[in-house]
């Protein structure tokens, strides 16, 4: 379970007014502003918002990469700021950065993360084999990942995030850049995780993506939660017939929410 309460994060960005400006001025960018929500086990929770809404920043705070400025977040009761090791052990993260080691094979990439999560070498190898089978990577398993297609890379990155069989899974735009077939198999995978009783939180800027999968939707815009509830609650609250219209009404623009 993920519990998020009034989470805040601002960045200081340095700007140079012109090429010849001697001093860069600093500006505060509020990326996440008092975000609160809860994601339950056995459910898929979608974090929906246009580009720059603060989805990635929120997920980075949950995965202990960034320290929150204010507020709290707990993963199965463990605080993300003060109990990093516990949080990291229980989380599987497919973050914004999904880079692989080019010179290592798909299998080695996956097994390496298994070892870092504390699996012994034979255990990590067995788990890597299992995931390679499940994700249909068998034909590529021994190849260096350098020449992989976008979809193949995404699969390896997902397998790497799931290698230690985490209870809570964070996925940042997991279908970004994938073709229709790869998107479908990603959806299958997410449904499988839900069926296994995992807590899945995934972010997307594409409405259809979220509508197709989520039990619960958190809509954020400019760092703030503008709606939080089930799809039927969204329809009821907005008085619209379709989710699409409801989203547009809640965010106040159509920009960036449609694929």
């Amino acid at each position: 379970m993920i519990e998020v309460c009034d989470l805040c994060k601002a960045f200081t960005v340095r700007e140079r007014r012109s090429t010849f400006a001697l001093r860069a001025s600093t500006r505060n960018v509020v990326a996440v502003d008092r975000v609160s929500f809860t994601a339950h086990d056995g459910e898929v929770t979608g974090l929906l918002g246009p580009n720059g809404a603060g989805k990635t920043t929120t997920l980075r705070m949950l995965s202990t990469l960034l320290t929150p400025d204010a507020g709290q977040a707990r993963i199965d009761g463990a605080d993300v700021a003060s109990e990093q090791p516990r949080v990291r052990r229980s989380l599987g993260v497919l973050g914004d950065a999904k880079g692989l080691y080019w010179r290592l094979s798909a299998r080695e990439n996956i097994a390496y993360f298994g070892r870092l999560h504390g699996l012994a070498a034979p255990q990590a190898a067995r788990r890597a084999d299992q995931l390679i089978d499940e994700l249909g990577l068998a034909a590529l398993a021994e190849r260096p990942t350098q020449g992989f297609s976008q979809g193949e890379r995404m699969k390896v990155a997902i397998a790497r995030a799931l290698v230690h069989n985490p209870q809570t899974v964070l996925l940042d735009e997991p279908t970004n850049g994938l073709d229709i077939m790869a998107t479908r198999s990603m959806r299958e995978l997410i449904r499988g995780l839900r069926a296994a009783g995992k807590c899945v939180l995934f972010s997307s800027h594409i409405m259809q993506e979220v509508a197709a999968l989520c039990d619960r939707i958190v809509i954020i815009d400019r760092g703030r939660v503008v709606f939080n509830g089930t799809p039927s609650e969204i329809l009821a609250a907005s008085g619209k017939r379709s989710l699409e219209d409801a989203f547009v009404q809640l965010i106040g623009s159509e920009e960036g929410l449609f694929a």
Partner: protein
Amino acid sequence: MTTVVEPTVATIHPTPKAADFSWARWLVVTQKEFTDLLRDRKSIFWALFAVAISGPLMVGLMYWLTTAVMDRVDKLTVPIVNAQFAPDLVRTIERQGMKIDADPPDYESRVKSGELDFALVVDTDFTESLAAGRPARITLITERSRDRSAPLAGRVSSVLNAWANQMGRERLILRGVSPVLAHPVQVEELDLATPEQRGSRLLQFMSFYALFAGLMGAIAAALDVTAGERERQTLEPLLTTPVTTLELTLGKWLAVTGINLIAVTTSLLGFVLSLHLVPLDRLGLPFTFGLAEYAGFMAVLTPFACMVPAVLLAFGAAGKTAKEAQSSLQMGVSLIGLLPLMSMVRQTRAPWWDAWVPVNGQYAVLNKVLRAETIATHEWAAMLAIPALIGVVALYALSRRLGDERMLAGR
């Protein structure tokens, strides 16, 4: 629906980093980085290869240059204009095993152009002047600034001087004067360069080269595991696992150090092997680079080769991209490369603190090893303490930097 988590009282316990450290994970990181690096055929593998063969190449070049000079000195032909006026001189020269090239045409322009290394011109009144006790003149025409002519001209001029002095002494004795009177002060040149030292002069380059191998071996690897990690966007996923920045830092350091030690060892081995193949005694250098010297070199270079990766890694992590890091690294490396050059050209004795300057200190001690001089305990201490200190500081900086939020996602 919004679930609110009860705000707990501000009891944030920063996680104790030291307690989280896991030796097993450290080794896992090391092993992964090492395999990953060795698979980088393009840069790492070829860097190792280049470092390994440049030693033998240098020895070969040195050997070839020295033998070429010696051959020319041995087979020296002396061009003499008006040789008929100085038959004694001709005989003396011939007795030295040199050939005479009598009356070469266009000698001045040929010396200038380098076709002749030098020429001797005997004045036409040489015989009369000599007999009359007037100064008799022989002119040595040469172009001293030309490196390859200088040793030949020097050889002939010393033969001439010896001959002239001999003649002078004989005349004084004939007149009943002791030759000592004519030379009240005897200036004698005592060359402190023993044959060993002369040999090691040439091989000072070897110290320089060995240090350089300790630098070059690590550059590509250090770049790959730091800036490369950021460029490939693999740092962020890594930091969501239980691995700590200290484990990452030490793992990367150990892997790059491994590569660097391979570079140093193979480069030295290449040197040793080629020195054994080349007949050094033929060059008049009773020079040995035996087991003792090899051990001495490794004793100096091992701490150095452990320090360098730490420093390079700290630099490498500073750049956002591999390219950016590379340029800052290159500057650092060329500055380091200049340090021993400074002590090579320095005319005065090295100040006492020179031994404690990294690179310079190593260079000085390596030279001592080559000259078979005893190395003081405090010098050995410096060889260990300075790299250890610098290495620890650099690794600390790197581990801080890896944990820094700004390192993420290439921002």
